């Protein structure tokens, strides 16, 4: 399973990167491939390419604020959550993502 996503919090110096780290760890643990872009106050880092997004099964958007380039995800399944959920329950979020993808594939 391939996941892409964006993390962005209000101040853009801490929650953004902690959410990124937690999600990456949780994905690694579950054996998923993950690429997360961060949009902090410093600007966009680890930017997603159109190919990344096209190849992905799902996008996890851990965002508290409006992000740049939302339209990039128009064509794929999105899961949008506040950053604190991604920080508190990253593994549960991975389970949920897998479940959503399965449902979509069956439908």
């Amino acid at each position: 399973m391939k996941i892409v996503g964006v993390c962005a919090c209000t101040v853009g110096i801490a929650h953004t990167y902690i959410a990124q780290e937690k999600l990456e760890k949780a994905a690694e643990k579950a054996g998923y491939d993950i690429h997360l872009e961060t949009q902090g106050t410093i600007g966009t880092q680890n930017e997603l390419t159109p190919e990344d997004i096209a190849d992905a099964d799902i996008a996890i958007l851990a965002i508290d604020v409006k992000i740049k380039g939302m339209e990039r995800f128009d064509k794929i399944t999105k899961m949008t959550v506040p950053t604190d959920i991604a920080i508190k329950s990253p593994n549960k979020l991975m389970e949920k993502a897998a479940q959503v993808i399965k449902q979509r594939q069956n439908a």
Partner: protein
Amino acid sequence: MKSAFKKLRLKNHLLTAISYLIPVVCGAGFMIAIGMAFGGSSSADLTKSFSFWDALSTMGGAGLGILPMIISTGIAFSIADKPGIAPGLVIGLAAQQIGAGFIGGLIGGFIAGWLVLAILKYVKLPTWANGLMPMLIVPFLASFIGCLIMIYIIGGPIGWFTTWLTHYLGTLNNTSKLFYGLMIGVLASVDYGGPINKTVFAFVLTMQASGVNEPITALILVNMATPLGFTAAYFIGKLFRKNIYNKVEVETIKTAFPMGIFEIVEGVLPIVLNDIVRCVVATGIGGAVGGAISMYFSANSKVPFGGLLAIPTMTKPMGFIIGLVANILVTGTALALLKKPVPVDEKEEEEDTSSEAELNMDDIQIS
């Protein structure tokens, strides 16, 4: 009703605007704080003679003066994207002119954003006139209608409300001061710079814009004292021969401490997330004490941000320092007592995934 309210995504738009506001507050706030600390005046006339520190304070003050426009533009942008920027700016300016200040800017931003969306949706032009839409119709109509609403309808009442609130807060007795200080202290500290803190920040910033400096001072105090308190906890723990942080956490403290001096609380987050409940309890108790003391002694920072640099701008710095020390000691001691001891060279524990909070489907949007 609840779902309609949720659809407006008020909080999301406000937080987006605040994310644009914070760097302005920090940049301009540091400038005015440094300038005033060296005796500069924040209302110097830069076309006449002025000192370097006057220039710094005056520009910082000017930067802080545009906060109503920043908040309205940020909200309008969050709602309506690029077409929201121009009307957001103009309506924010209208709010400032009519004396509705920061609250006016906040409400004006929503009006601007929604007006733009409505115009895009309902104003239909013949094909030949489509080019007029982005250049004329949207910016003109949204700014025009928004300014009319701001100036003739809501601006006045918001201005009266702000004046009343300022007067009310200016005449608080000591008991109410303690109470408000305690509230600000707890709310501003317990989510470490998260959404609750930012909401309180928007509120106390409004107060400061109308001349009441004490509430924002309480917020500055707790935001400094939390990371400093976490640092103190390390040493207080040592006094009891108790080691409360693992190696990684001690490294975290080394960056969190200098950040704390300048009122950036987020440095301690990695520690907090390892042990949320104990940390939040210790922080909340300390914040309550610090906030209450700061308000009680009417510590009054003239700048909205700056941490240590805010102290020279106060006319009553002693109250601030007493509150700061008390907050640091209380948070530090509480944390040192509450936290479980860890061996010095403990490896990072394997995280226990079963203890994760259940997902609340209300928080998750799938599309």
